[in-house]
Protein backbone atom coordinates (compact mmCIF):
# COMPACT_ATOMS: atom_id res chain seq x y z
CA UNK A 1 0.00 0.00 0.00
CA UNK A 2 1.41 3.39 -0.98
CA UNK A 3 1.63 5.77 1.95
CA UNK A 4 3.01 8.64 -0.10
CA UNK A 5 2.50 9.41 -3.77
CA UNK A 6 4.17 12.49 -5.17
CA UNK A 7 3.82 13.42 -8.80
CA UNK A 8 5.28 16.44 -10.54
CA UNK A 9 6.02 18.33 -7.33
CA UNK A 10 7.50 21.79 -7.99
CA UNK A 11 8.70 24.35 -5.51
CA UNK A 12 10.67 27.46 -6.41
CA UNK A 13 12.12 30.23 -4.27
CA UNK A 14 12.79 33.75 -5.42
CA UNK A 15 16.11 35.08 -4.25
CA UNK A 16 16.31 38.61 -5.58
CA UNK A 17 16.09 38.35 -9.35
CA UNK A 18 17.09 34.70 -9.59
CA UNK A 19 14.70 31.79 -9.15
CA UNK A 20 15.94 28.70 -7.32
CA UNK A 21 14.09 25.50 -8.20
CA UNK A 22 14.27 23.71 -4.89
CA UNK A 23 12.03 20.94 -6.20
CA UNK A 24 11.79 20.42 -9.93
CA UNK A 25 9.31 17.75 -10.88
CA UNK A 26 9.59 15.16 -8.13
CA UNK A 27 7.77 11.86 -8.68
CA UNK A 28 8.01 9.50 -5.74
CA UNK A 29 6.06 6.64 -4.23
CA UNK A 30 6.82 5.46 -0.71
CA UNK A 31 5.04 2.43 0.70
CA UNK A 32 3.81 2.18 4.26
CA UNK A 33 6.49 0.88 6.61
CA UNK A 34 9.44 1.80 4.38
CA UNK A 35 12.74 3.16 5.71
CA UNK A 36 13.98 5.79 3.26
CA UNK A 37 17.02 8.03 3.49
CA UNK A 38 17.46 11.21 1.48
CA UNK A 39 20.97 12.55 0.94
CA UNK A 40 22.25 15.48 -1.03
CA UNK A 41 24.38 18.58 -0.77
CA UNK A 42 22.93 21.59 0.99
CA UNK A 43 20.67 23.40 -1.45
CA UNK A 44 19.84 20.14 -3.25
CA UNK A 45 16.22 20.45 -2.09
CA UNK A 46 16.16 17.61 0.43
CA UNK A 47 14.90 19.79 3.27
CA UNK A 48 12.26 21.35 1.05
CA UNK A 49 11.10 17.88 0.07
CA UNK A 50 10.84 16.96 3.72
CA UNK A 51 8.84 20.14 4.44
CA UNK A 52 6.46 19.34 1.61
CA UNK A 53 6.06 15.77 2.87
CA UNK A 54 5.37 17.17 6.35
CA UNK A 55 2.76 19.64 5.03
CA UNK A 56 4.80 22.54 6.34
CA UNK A 57 5.31 23.82 2.81
CA UNK A 58 2.93 23.86 -0.15
CA UNK A 59 4.25 22.81 -3.55
CA UNK A 60 3.70 25.21 -6.43
CA UNK A 61 2.58 22.41 -8.70
CA UNK A 62 2.01 18.68 -8.60
CA UNK A 63 -0.02 16.45 -6.35
CA UNK A 64 0.71 14.81 -3.01
CA UNK A 65 -1.41 11.90 -1.87
CA UNK A 66 -0.95 10.80 1.72
CA UNK A 67 -2.78 7.57 2.56
CA UNK A 68 -4.66 7.88 -0.75
CA UNK A 69 -5.91 11.33 0.07
CA UNK A 70 -4.92 14.45 -1.87
CA UNK A 71 -3.49 16.60 0.88
CA UNK A 72 -2.27 19.52 -1.25
CA UNK A 73 -5.80 20.80 -1.69
CA UNK A 74 -6.65 20.68 2.02
CA UNK A 75 -7.32 23.86 3.99
CA UNK A 76 -4.73 25.06 6.50
CA UNK A 77 -6.78 23.68 9.38
CA UNK A 78 -7.22 20.30 7.69
CA UNK A 79 -3.48 20.14 7.06
CA UNK A 80 -2.87 20.95 10.72
CA UNK A 81 -5.13 18.05 11.63
CA UNK A 82 -3.16 15.71 9.33
CA UNK A 83 0.12 16.89 10.88
CA UNK A 84 -1.33 16.31 14.31
CA UNK A 85 -2.56 12.77 13.66
CA UNK A 86 -0.44 11.26 10.90
CA UNK A 87 3.00 12.94 10.86
CA UNK A 88 5.79 13.13 13.43
CA UNK A 89 8.80 15.44 13.16
CA UNK A 90 12.31 15.00 14.55
CA UNK A 91 14.62 17.98 14.13
CA UNK A 92 18.37 18.41 14.20
CA UNK A 93 18.14 21.01 16.98
CA UNK A 94 15.52 19.02 18.92
CA UNK A 95 13.12 22.00 19.20
CA UNK A 96 12.15 21.34 22.77
CA UNK A 97 10.29 24.12 24.59
CA UNK A 98 12.89 25.22 27.16
CA UNK A 99 10.50 26.15 29.96
CA UNK A 100 8.60 22.85 29.86
CA UNK A 101 9.75 19.59 31.46
CA UNK A 102 10.51 16.48 29.41
CA UNK A 103 7.06 15.07 30.21
CA UNK A 104 5.35 18.34 29.28
CA UNK A 105 7.26 18.51 26.00
CA UNK A 106 6.19 14.97 25.14
CA UNK A 107 2.59 15.85 26.02
CA UNK A 108 2.45 18.89 23.69
CA UNK A 109 0.91 17.12 20.65
CA UNK A 110 -1.74 15.52 22.91
CA UNK A 111 -2.47 18.95 24.41
CA UNK A 112 -2.89 20.51 20.96
CA UNK A 113 -5.15 17.63 19.86
CA UNK A 114 -7.42 18.25 22.84
CA UNK A 115 -6.87 14.85 24.45
CA UNK A 116 -8.14 14.65 28.02
CA UNK A 117 -5.55 15.03 30.84
CA UNK A 118 -6.06 11.51 32.23
CA UNK A 119 -5.36 9.82 28.92
CA UNK A 120 -2.55 12.27 28.27
CA UNK A 121 -0.86 11.28 31.49
CA UNK A 122 -1.19 7.58 30.76
CA UNK A 123 0.24 7.90 27.26
CA UNK A 124 3.10 10.17 28.34
CA UNK A 125 3.90 7.76 31.18
CA UNK A 126 4.06 4.86 28.72
CA UNK A 127 6.26 6.87 26.33
CA UNK A 128 8.65 7.85 29.16
CA UNK A 129 9.02 4.17 30.05
CA UNK A 130 9.49 3.05 26.45
CA UNK A 131 12.17 5.66 25.81
CA UNK A 132 13.93 5.15 29.14
CA UNK A 133 13.19 8.68 30.32
CA UNK A 134 11.29 7.93 33.54
CA UNK A 135 14.04 9.41 35.71
CA UNK A 136 14.09 12.52 33.55
CA UNK A 137 10.36 13.24 33.34
CA UNK A 138 10.51 16.36 35.51
CA UNK A 139 13.75 17.74 34.07
CA UNK A 140 13.85 20.70 31.76
CA UNK A 141 15.72 20.43 28.44
CA UNK A 142 18.75 22.33 29.78
CA UNK A 143 19.13 19.62 32.43
CA UNK A 144 19.21 16.84 29.83
CA UNK A 145 22.06 15.46 27.72
CA UNK A 146 21.90 15.76 23.95
CA UNK A 147 20.88 12.12 23.56
CA UNK A 148 18.16 12.49 26.17
CA UNK A 149 16.88 15.60 24.45
CA UNK A 150 16.57 13.83 21.14
CA UNK A 151 14.86 10.88 22.86
CA UNK A 152 12.33 13.34 24.31
CA UNK A 153 11.85 14.81 20.83
CA UNK A 154 11.31 11.36 19.31
CA UNK A 155 8.89 10.43 22.09
CA UNK A 156 6.98 13.62 21.30
CA UNK A 157 7.03 12.88 17.55
CA UNK A 158 5.52 9.43 18.08
CA UNK A 159 3.09 10.11 20.95
CA UNK A 160 0.20 10.55 18.49
CA UNK A 161 1.13 7.26 16.79
CA UNK A 162 1.72 8.81 13.38
CA UNK A 163 2.01 6.80 10.17
CA UNK A 164 4.96 8.87 8.98
CA UNK A 165 8.06 9.93 10.87
CA UNK A 166 10.19 12.67 9.28
CA UNK A 167 13.69 13.10 10.68
CA UNK A 168 15.81 16.02 9.52
CA UNK A 169 19.49 15.41 10.43
CA UNK A 170 18.46 13.88 13.76
CA UNK A 171 22.09 13.12 14.69
CA UNK A 172 23.53 16.42 13.45
CA UNK A 173 23.93 17.86 16.95
CA UNK A 174 25.04 14.63 18.63
CA UNK A 175 28.34 12.82 19.04
CA UNK A 176 28.85 9.58 17.15
CA UNK A 177 27.87 7.16 19.93
CA UNK A 178 24.76 9.06 20.90
CA UNK A 179 23.87 9.53 17.24
CA UNK A 180 24.02 5.80 16.66
CA UNK A 181 21.83 5.23 19.69
CA UNK A 182 19.24 7.63 18.27
CA UNK A 183 19.38 5.97 14.86
CA UNK A 184 18.82 2.56 16.49
CA UNK A 185 15.81 4.01 18.26
CA UNK A 186 14.35 5.37 15.02
CA UNK A 187 14.99 2.07 13.28
CA UNK A 188 13.23 0.23 16.09
CA UNK A 189 10.21 2.47 15.58
CA UNK A 190 10.34 1.70 11.85
CA UNK A 191 10.46 -1.98 12.68
CA UNK A 192 7.27 -1.39 14.65
CA UNK A 193 5.56 -0.21 11.47
CA UNK A 194 6.16 3.52 11.22
CA UNK A 195 7.32 4.78 7.84
CA UNK A 196 10.64 6.52 8.45
CA UNK A 197 12.12 9.18 6.19
CA UNK A 198 15.56 10.33 7.20
CA UNK A 199 17.29 13.36 5.71
CA UNK A 200 21.05 13.48 6.17
CA UNK A 201 24.22 14.58 4.49
CA UNK A 202 26.12 11.61 5.97
CA UNK A 203 26.35 8.77 3.39
CA UNK A 204 27.25 6.22 6.10
CA UNK A 205 24.05 7.00 7.95
CA UNK A 206 22.03 6.99 4.75
CA UNK A 207 23.38 3.50 4.00
CA UNK A 208 21.39 2.18 7.00
CA UNK A 209 18.16 2.70 5.08
CA UNK A 210 16.70 -0.02 2.84
CA UNK A 211 16.01 2.59 0.23
CA UNK A 212 18.30 5.53 -0.49
CA UNK A 213 17.40 8.62 -2.45
CA UNK A 214 20.01 11.07 -3.66
CA UNK A 215 18.96 14.61 -4.54
CA UNK A 216 20.70 17.15 -6.71
CA UNK A 217 19.41 20.52 -7.89
CA UNK A 218 15.85 19.77 -6.91
CA UNK A 219 15.70 16.44 -8.71
CA UNK A 220 16.00 12.83 -7.63
CA UNK A 221 19.40 11.81 -8.95
CA UNK A 222 19.17 8.22 -7.85
CA UNK A 223 16.78 5.90 -6.11
CA UNK A 224 17.92 2.43 -5.03
CA UNK A 225 14.42 1.14 -5.70
CA UNK A 226 14.52 2.02 -9.38
Amino acid at each position, binding site marked *: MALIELSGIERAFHLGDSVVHALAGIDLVIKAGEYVSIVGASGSGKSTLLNVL*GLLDRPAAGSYHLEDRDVTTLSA*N*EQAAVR*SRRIGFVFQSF*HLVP*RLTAAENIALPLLLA*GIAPAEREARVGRALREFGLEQRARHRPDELSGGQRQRVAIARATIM*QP*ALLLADEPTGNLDRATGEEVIRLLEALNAGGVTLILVTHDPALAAHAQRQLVMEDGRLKSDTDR
Partner: protein
Amino acid sequence: MPAGEQVTPDPERMPVMSGADILRFARTAALGYPLRTALSVLAMAIGVAAVVVLTALGDGARRYVVGQFSALGSNLVIVLPGRSATGGFNPVNVVTSTPRDLTVEDAQALLAAPAVRQLAPLTVGTSEISFGGRLREVVLAGSTASLKDVRHYQLEPGSHFLPEGEAGRVAPVAVVGAKIRDEVFGTQPAIGQLIRLGDRRLRVIGILKASGQGMGMNTDELVVVPVALAQSLFNSNTLFRILVEARSRGQIEAAKAQVLDILKARHGGEEDVTVITQDAVLATFDRLLGALTAAVGGIAAISLLVAGILVMNVMLVAVAQRTGEIGLLKALGAREADIRQLFLAEAAMLSLFGAASGYLLGEAGAFALRSFFPVFPAYPPGWAVAAALITALATGLGFSLLPAQRAARLDPVQALMRH
Protein backbone atom coordinates in the same frame (compact mmCIF):
# COMPACT_ATOMS: atom_id res chain seq x y z
CA MET B 1 0.83 -1.01 13.75
CA PRO B 2 0.06 2.70 13.77
CA ALA B 3 -0.48 2.96 10.04
CA GLY B 4 -3.19 0.31 10.27
CA GLU B 5 -5.52 2.26 12.54
CA GLN B 6 -5.99 4.96 9.98
CA VAL B 7 -8.22 7.83 10.99
CA THR B 8 -9.48 10.44 8.60
CA PRO B 9 -8.97 13.72 10.43
CA ASP B 10 -11.98 15.91 10.20
CA PRO B 11 -11.01 19.37 11.41
CA GLU B 12 -14.62 20.32 12.11
CA ARG B 13 -15.12 17.42 14.48
CA MET B 14 -11.60 17.32 15.82
CA PRO B 15 -11.31 18.25 19.49
CA VAL B 16 -9.35 21.42 20.15
CA MET B 17 -7.18 22.52 23.04
CA SER B 18 -9.25 22.91 26.17
CA GLY B 19 -9.50 26.32 27.81
CA ALA B 20 -7.69 25.05 30.90
CA ASP B 21 -4.78 23.79 28.77
CA ILE B 22 -4.60 27.10 26.89
CA LEU B 23 -4.44 28.99 30.17
CA ARG B 24 -1.86 26.63 31.66
CA PHE B 25 0.35 26.89 28.60
CA ALA B 26 -0.01 30.70 28.52
CA ARG B 27 0.91 30.82 32.17
CA THR B 28 4.13 28.87 31.65
CA ALA B 29 4.89 31.21 28.75
CA ALA B 30 4.33 34.30 30.90
CA LEU B 31 6.34 32.88 33.81
CA GLY B 32 9.09 31.79 31.44
CA TYR B 33 10.04 35.45 30.92
CA PRO B 34 9.54 36.96 34.39
CA LEU B 35 11.10 40.38 33.82
CA ARG B 36 9.14 41.06 30.66
CA THR B 37 5.95 39.86 32.30
CA ALA B 38 6.57 41.89 35.46
CA LEU B 39 7.16 45.07 33.45
CA SER B 40 3.94 44.85 31.50
CA VAL B 41 1.98 43.91 34.61
CA LEU B 42 3.52 46.92 36.34
CA ALA B 43 2.60 49.27 33.49
CA MET B 44 -0.97 48.02 33.52
CA ALA B 45 -1.10 48.23 37.31
CA ILE B 46 0.13 51.82 37.35
CA GLY B 47 -2.48 52.78 34.77
CA VAL B 48 -5.34 51.26 36.73
CA ALA B 49 -4.02 52.56 40.04
CA ALA B 50 -3.77 56.07 38.57
CA VAL B 51 -7.41 55.97 37.49
CA VAL B 52 -8.54 54.60 40.86
CA VAL B 53 -6.57 57.11 42.96
CA LEU B 54 -7.30 60.17 40.83
CA THR B 55 -11.02 59.49 40.60
CA ALA B 56 -11.04 58.76 44.34
CA LEU B 57 -9.50 62.20 44.80
CA GLY B 58 -12.00 63.88 42.49
CA ASP B 59 -14.98 62.09 43.92
CA GLY B 60 -13.65 62.73 47.41
CA ALA B 61 -13.64 66.45 46.65
CA ARG B 62 -17.20 66.18 45.39
CA ARG B 63 -18.38 64.28 48.46
CA TYR B 64 -16.53 66.71 50.72
CA VAL B 65 -18.25 69.73 49.20
CA VAL B 66 -21.65 68.02 49.16
CA GLY B 67 -21.14 67.00 52.78
CA GLN B 68 -20.22 70.53 53.72
CA PHE B 69 -23.33 71.89 52.11
CA SER B 70 -25.52 69.33 53.82
CA ALA B 71 -23.97 70.28 57.15
CA LEU B 72 -25.06 73.83 56.43
CA GLY B 73 -28.66 72.77 56.86
CA SER B 74 -31.28 71.22 54.67
CA ASN B 75 -33.74 72.95 52.35
CA LEU B 76 -31.86 76.15 52.91
CA VAL B 77 -32.62 79.42 51.15
CA ILE B 78 -30.05 82.13 51.81
CA VAL B 79 -30.82 85.83 51.52
CA LEU B 80 -27.96 88.27 51.14
CA PRO B 81 -28.10 92.01 50.72
CA GLY B 82 -27.36 93.56 47.32
CA ARG B 83 -28.29 92.52 43.83
CA SER B 84 -25.98 89.98 42.28
CA ALA B 85 -24.13 91.27 39.26
CA THR B 86 -25.87 88.84 36.94
CA GLY B 87 -28.90 91.14 36.65
CA GLY B 88 -27.28 93.17 33.90
CA PHE B 89 -27.73 96.92 33.49
CA ASN B 90 -30.69 98.20 35.44
CA PRO B 91 -31.65 101.90 35.40
CA VAL B 92 -32.80 101.59 39.00
CA ASN B 93 -29.22 100.72 40.02
CA VAL B 94 -28.04 103.98 38.52
CA VAL B 95 -30.44 106.15 40.53
CA THR B 96 -30.12 104.39 43.86
CA SER B 97 -26.57 104.45 45.08
CA THR B 98 -26.50 101.55 47.54
CA PRO B 99 -28.99 98.79 48.16
CA ARG B 100 -31.07 98.90 51.26
CA ASP B 101 -29.77 96.96 54.23
CA LEU B 102 -31.30 93.74 55.42
CA THR B 103 -32.74 94.18 58.87
CA VAL B 104 -34.08 92.04 61.68
CA GLU B 105 -37.52 93.39 60.76
CA ASP B 106 -37.07 92.07 57.22
CA ALA B 107 -36.29 88.68 58.69
CA GLN B 108 -39.39 88.82 60.92
CA ALA B 109 -41.55 89.70 57.94
CA LEU B 110 -40.35 86.64 56.02
CA LEU B 111 -41.93 84.36 58.62
CA ALA B 112 -45.24 85.28 57.00
CA ALA B 113 -44.28 83.38 53.84
CA PRO B 114 -46.24 80.09 53.78
CA ALA B 115 -43.36 78.07 52.37
CA VAL B 116 -40.99 79.15 55.15
CA ARG B 117 -40.72 76.86 58.15
CA GLN B 118 -38.24 78.86 60.17
CA LEU B 119 -35.41 81.29 59.69
CA ALA B 120 -32.42 82.74 61.44
CA PRO B 121 -31.06 86.24 60.89
CA LEU B 122 -27.29 86.33 60.93
CA THR B 123 -24.86 89.12 61.53
CA VAL B 124 -21.15 88.39 61.60
CA GLY B 125 -18.10 90.31 62.74
CA THR B 126 -15.01 90.00 64.86
CA SER B 127 -14.65 90.92 68.49
CA GLU B 128 -12.42 90.23 71.45
CA ILE B 129 -13.30 87.82 74.18
CA SER B 130 -11.59 88.01 77.55
CA PHE B 131 -11.75 85.79 80.58
CA GLY B 132 -9.46 85.51 83.54
CA GLY B 133 -6.88 87.81 81.99
CA ARG B 134 -6.84 85.87 78.73
CA LEU B 135 -7.72 87.76 75.58
CA ARG B 136 -8.58 86.29 72.20
CA GLU B 137 -9.98 87.55 68.94
CA VAL B 138 -13.06 85.63 67.85
CA VAL B 139 -15.59 85.53 65.06
CA LEU B 140 -18.87 86.70 66.53
CA ALA B 141 -22.19 85.63 65.09
CA GLY B 142 -25.41 87.33 66.12
CA SER B 143 -28.55 85.31 65.58
CA THR B 144 -31.60 83.79 67.24
CA ALA B 145 -32.60 80.48 68.79
CA SER B 146 -33.63 79.17 65.36
CA LEU B 147 -30.03 79.18 64.16
CA LYS B 148 -29.40 75.91 65.97
CA ASP B 149 -32.05 74.07 64.01
CA VAL B 150 -31.46 75.82 60.72
CA ARG B 151 -27.73 75.06 60.78
CA HIS B 152 -28.04 71.70 62.57
CA TYR B 153 -25.71 72.73 65.38
CA GLN B 154 -24.90 70.12 68.01
CA LEU B 155 -24.36 71.17 71.62
CA GLU B 156 -22.27 69.58 74.31
CA PRO B 157 -24.12 68.04 77.26
CA GLY B 158 -25.39 70.57 79.81
CA SER B 159 -25.50 73.30 77.21
CA HIS B 160 -28.28 75.64 76.17
CA PHE B 161 -28.57 77.59 72.97
CA LEU B 162 -29.88 81.11 72.74
CA PRO B 163 -33.26 81.49 74.48
CA GLU B 164 -36.43 81.55 72.40
CA GLY B 165 -38.49 84.66 71.70
CA GLU B 166 -37.75 88.30 72.48
CA ALA B 167 -35.22 87.39 75.18
CA GLY B 168 -33.20 85.55 72.56
CA ARG B 169 -32.46 88.77 70.83
CA VAL B 170 -31.12 90.71 73.77
CA ALA B 171 -30.22 88.36 76.66
CA PRO B 172 -26.56 88.78 77.77
CA VAL B 173 -25.61 85.21 76.97
CA ALA B 174 -23.14 83.53 74.63
CA VAL B 175 -22.65 80.10 73.10
CA VAL B 176 -19.01 79.34 72.31
CA GLY B 177 -17.22 76.93 70.02
CA ALA B 178 -15.24 74.00 71.36
CA LYS B 179 -11.87 75.47 70.47
CA ILE B 180 -12.68 78.80 72.14
CA ARG B 181 -13.71 76.89 75.23
CA ASP B 182 -10.39 75.00 75.25
CA GLU B 183 -8.27 78.07 74.68
CA VAL B 184 -10.05 80.51 76.94
CA PHE B 185 -11.23 78.34 79.79
CA GLY B 186 -8.69 75.52 79.65
CA THR B 187 -9.77 72.77 82.01
CA GLN B 188 -12.25 74.92 83.96
CA PRO B 189 -15.94 74.36 83.30
CA ALA B 190 -17.04 77.06 80.87
CA ILE B 191 -20.79 76.96 81.35
CA GLY B 192 -21.99 79.60 83.76
CA GLN B 193 -18.81 81.67 83.55
CA LEU B 194 -18.97 85.37 82.89
CA ILE B 195 -16.89 86.59 79.99
CA ARG B 196 -16.20 89.99 78.61
CA LEU B 197 -16.96 90.56 74.96
CA GLY B 198 -16.07 94.00 73.74
CA ASP B 199 -17.62 96.23 76.42
CA ARG B 200 -20.28 93.71 77.45
CA ARG B 201 -20.31 91.05 80.13
CA LEU B 202 -21.99 87.87 78.99
CA ARG B 203 -22.69 84.53 80.60
CA VAL B 204 -21.64 81.39 78.74
CA ILE B 205 -24.67 79.10 78.49
CA GLY B 206 -23.61 76.59 75.92
CA ILE B 207 -20.78 75.00 73.97
CA LEU B 208 -20.98 73.96 70.32
CA LYS B 209 -19.80 70.44 69.76
CA ALA B 210 -16.46 70.19 67.95
CA SER B 211 -17.11 69.48 64.28
CA GLY B 212 -13.78 70.32 62.70
CA GLN B 213 -15.51 71.59 59.61
CA GLY B 214 -18.20 73.95 58.50
CA MET B 215 -18.58 75.72 55.21
CA GLY B 216 -17.68 79.37 55.56
CA MET B 217 -17.58 79.50 59.33
CA ASN B 218 -15.65 77.15 61.52
CA THR B 219 -18.02 76.57 64.41
CA ASP B 220 -15.13 75.55 66.65
CA GLU B 221 -13.90 79.13 66.77
CA LEU B 222 -17.28 80.81 66.77
CA VAL B 223 -19.08 82.74 69.50
CA VAL B 224 -22.85 83.02 69.04
CA VAL B 225 -24.75 85.78 70.81
CA PRO B 226 -28.27 87.24 70.43
CA VAL B 227 -28.60 89.23 67.23
CA ALA B 228 -29.48 92.60 68.84
CA LEU B 229 -26.50 92.30 71.13
CA ALA B 230 -24.18 91.67 68.21
CA GLN B 231 -25.63 94.55 66.26
CA SER B 232 -25.10 96.94 69.13
CA LEU B 233 -21.54 95.64 69.54
CA PHE B 234 -20.88 96.25 65.86
CA ASN B 235 -22.83 99.48 66.07
CA SER B 236 -24.87 98.59 62.99
CA ASN B 237 -28.38 97.34 62.36
CA THR B 238 -27.75 95.43 59.19
CA LEU B 239 -27.75 91.68 58.71
CA PHE B 240 -25.09 89.67 56.95
CA ARG B 241 -27.50 86.92 55.87
CA ILE B 242 -30.94 85.61 56.53
CA LEU B 243 -30.94 81.81 56.60
CA VAL B 244 -34.39 80.56 55.62
CA GLU B 245 -35.47 76.95 55.87
CA ALA B 246 -38.22 75.92 53.46
CA ARG B 247 -40.95 73.55 54.59
CA SER B 248 -39.73 70.80 52.30
CA ARG B 249 -37.41 70.20 49.41
CA GLY B 250 -40.27 70.76 46.99
CA GLN B 251 -41.06 74.10 48.59
CA ILE B 252 -37.59 75.56 48.11
CA GLU B 253 -38.47 77.38 44.89
CA ALA B 254 -41.76 78.67 46.35
CA ALA B 255 -39.95 79.92 49.44
CA LYS B 256 -37.42 81.68 47.26
CA ALA B 257 -40.17 83.46 45.27
CA GLN B 258 -42.11 84.41 48.38
CA VAL B 259 -39.02 85.75 50.12
CA LEU B 260 -38.19 87.85 47.08
CA ASP B 261 -41.77 89.22 46.87
CA ILE B 262 -41.89 90.18 50.52
CA LEU B 263 -38.52 91.88 50.53
CA LYS B 264 -39.27 93.70 47.28
CA ALA B 265 -42.48 95.06 48.81
CA ARG B 266 -40.64 96.12 51.94
CA HIS B 267 -37.84 97.78 49.99
CA GLY B 268 -40.04 100.07 47.96
CA GLY B 269 -40.43 97.78 44.97
CA GLU B 270 -36.74 97.35 44.46
CA GLU B 271 -35.23 93.90 44.10
CA ASP B 272 -32.10 94.72 46.05
CA VAL B 273 -31.39 91.35 47.63
CA THR B 274 -29.97 88.13 46.27
CA VAL B 275 -31.62 84.86 47.16
CA ILE B 276 -29.68 81.68 46.57
CA THR B 277 -30.85 78.18 47.23
CA GLN B 278 -28.49 75.66 48.66
CA ASP B 279 -29.88 73.09 46.25
CA ALA B 280 -28.86 75.08 43.19
CA VAL B 281 -25.38 75.72 44.53
CA LEU B 282 -25.06 72.12 45.54
CA ALA B 283 -26.19 70.85 42.15
CA THR B 284 -23.71 73.15 40.44
CA PHE B 285 -20.84 71.98 42.59
CA ASP B 286 -21.94 68.38 42.19
CA ARG B 287 -21.97 68.71 38.41
CA LEU B 288 -18.73 70.64 38.33
CA LEU B 289 -16.80 68.23 40.50
CA GLY B 290 -18.40 65.24 38.82
CA ALA B 291 -17.15 66.53 35.47
CA LEU B 292 -13.76 67.20 37.01
CA THR B 293 -13.58 63.63 38.30
CA ALA B 294 -14.50 62.27 34.89
CA ALA B 295 -11.89 64.48 33.23
CA VAL B 296 -9.17 63.45 35.67
CA GLY B 297 -10.19 59.82 35.21
CA GLY B 298 -10.01 60.27 31.46
CA ILE B 299 -6.52 61.70 31.68
CA ALA B 300 -5.47 58.79 33.88
CA ALA B 301 -7.02 56.42 31.35
CA ILE B 302 -4.44 57.64 28.83
CA SER B 303 -1.85 55.85 30.94
CA LEU B 304 -3.93 52.71 30.39
CA LEU B 305 -3.65 53.28 26.67
CA VAL B 306 0.11 53.60 27.08
CA ALA B 307 0.10 50.39 29.10
CA GLY B 308 -1.85 48.72 26.29
CA ILE B 309 0.77 49.78 23.77
CA LEU B 310 3.43 48.42 26.09
CA VAL B 311 1.60 45.10 26.26
CA MET B 312 1.57 45.09 22.46
CA ASN B 313 5.32 45.67 22.43
CA VAL B 314 5.89 42.94 24.96
CA MET B 315 3.78 40.53 22.95
CA LEU B 316 5.60 41.43 19.73
CA VAL B 317 8.89 40.69 21.48
CA ALA B 318 7.38 37.46 22.75
CA VAL B 319 6.41 36.43 19.23
CA ALA B 320 9.93 37.25 17.97
CA GLN B 321 11.56 35.38 20.85
CA ARG B 322 9.37 32.35 20.48
CA THR B 323 9.34 32.11 16.71
CA GLY B 324 10.96 28.66 16.84
CA GLU B 325 8.40 27.50 19.35
CA ILE B 326 5.56 28.73 17.16
CA GLY B 327 7.00 26.82 14.21
CA LEU B 328 7.23 23.72 16.38
CA LEU B 329 3.64 24.03 17.58
CA LYS B 330 2.52 24.29 13.97
CA ALA B 331 4.53 21.19 13.06
CA LEU B 332 2.90 19.37 15.97
CA GLY B 333 -0.55 20.16 14.57
CA ALA B 334 -1.48 23.54 16.05
CA ARG B 335 -3.89 25.52 13.87
CA GLU B 336 -3.68 29.29 13.39
CA ALA B 337 -6.57 29.72 15.81
CA ASP B 338 -4.71 27.73 18.48
CA ILE B 339 -1.61 29.92 18.24
CA ARG B 340 -3.74 33.06 18.30
CA GLN B 341 -5.57 31.86 21.39
CA LEU B 342 -2.34 31.02 23.19
CA PHE B 343 -0.96 34.51 22.70
CA LEU B 344 -4.25 36.25 23.47
CA ALA B 345 -4.59 34.18 26.63
CA GLU B 346 -1.13 35.29 27.68
CA ALA B 347 -1.97 38.94 27.02
CA ALA B 348 -5.27 38.58 28.85
CA MET B 349 -3.43 37.11 31.80
CA LEU B 350 -0.95 39.98 31.88
CA SER B 351 -3.76 42.52 31.63
CA LEU B 352 -5.97 40.83 34.18
CA PHE B 353 -3.17 40.44 36.68
CA GLY B 354 -1.99 43.99 36.04
CA ALA B 355 -5.52 45.37 36.38
CA ALA B 356 -6.16 43.42 39.58
CA SER B 357 -2.91 44.50 41.22
CA GLY B 358 -3.48 48.04 39.97
CA TYR B 359 -6.92 48.03 41.58
CA LEU B 360 -5.46 46.86 44.89
CA LEU B 361 -2.68 49.45 44.59
CA GLY B 362 -5.25 52.16 43.86
CA GLU B 363 -7.44 51.14 46.79
CA ALA B 364 -4.36 51.19 49.01
CA GLY B 365 -3.56 54.67 47.73
CA ALA B 366 -7.09 55.87 48.40
CA PHE B 367 -6.90 54.31 51.85
CA ALA B 368 -3.63 56.16 52.51
CA LEU B 369 -5.27 59.41 51.38
CA ARG B 370 -8.17 58.83 53.75
CA SER B 371 -5.78 58.02 56.59
CA PHE B 372 -3.79 61.20 56.09
CA PHE B 373 -6.83 63.43 55.46
CA PRO B 374 -9.67 61.92 57.49
CA VAL B 375 -12.15 64.66 56.52
CA PHE B 376 -11.64 63.85 52.87
CA PRO B 377 -13.79 60.89 51.78
CA ALA B 378 -11.46 59.64 49.00
CA TYR B 379 -13.37 56.55 47.83
CA PRO B 380 -13.03 55.66 44.14
CA PRO B 381 -16.45 55.74 42.49
CA GLY B 382 -17.71 52.37 41.26
CA TRP B 383 -18.10 53.51 37.66
CA ALA B 384 -14.46 54.59 37.57
CA VAL B 385 -13.21 51.27 38.94
CA ALA B 386 -15.34 49.35 36.46
CA ALA B 387 -14.22 51.58 33.59
CA ALA B 388 -10.55 51.25 34.58
CA LEU B 389 -10.72 47.45 34.76
CA ILE B 390 -12.65 47.13 31.51
CA THR B 391 -10.36 49.60 29.72
CA ALA B 392 -7.28 47.75 30.98
CA LEU B 393 -8.56 44.40 29.73
CA ALA B 394 -9.83 45.85 26.47
CA THR B 395 -6.61 47.69 25.64
CA GLY B 396 -4.47 44.76 26.76
CA LEU B 397 -6.41 42.35 24.56
CA GLY B 398 -7.00 44.83 21.76
CA PHE B 399 -3.34 45.67 21.41
CA SER B 400 -2.46 41.97 21.45
CA LEU B 401 -4.58 41.13 18.44
CA LEU B 402 -1.84 42.22 16.06
CA PRO B 403 1.00 40.26 17.75
CA ALA B 404 -1.22 37.19 18.12
CA GLN B 405 -2.22 37.41 14.47
CA ARG B 406 1.42 37.79 13.47
CA ALA B 407 2.29 34.66 15.46
CA ALA B 408 -0.60 32.70 13.95
CA ARG B 409 0.40 33.67 10.40
CA LEU B 410 4.08 32.74 10.74
CA ASP B 411 5.33 30.44 8.01
CA PRO B 412 6.26 27.23 9.87
CA VAL B 413 9.31 26.48 7.70
CA GLN B 414 10.76 29.95 8.28
CA ALA B 415 9.82 29.83 11.95
CA LEU B 416 11.49 26.46 12.51
CA MET B 417 14.72 27.67 10.95
CA ARG B 418 15.01 30.37 13.60
CA HIS B 419 15.79 28.96 16.95
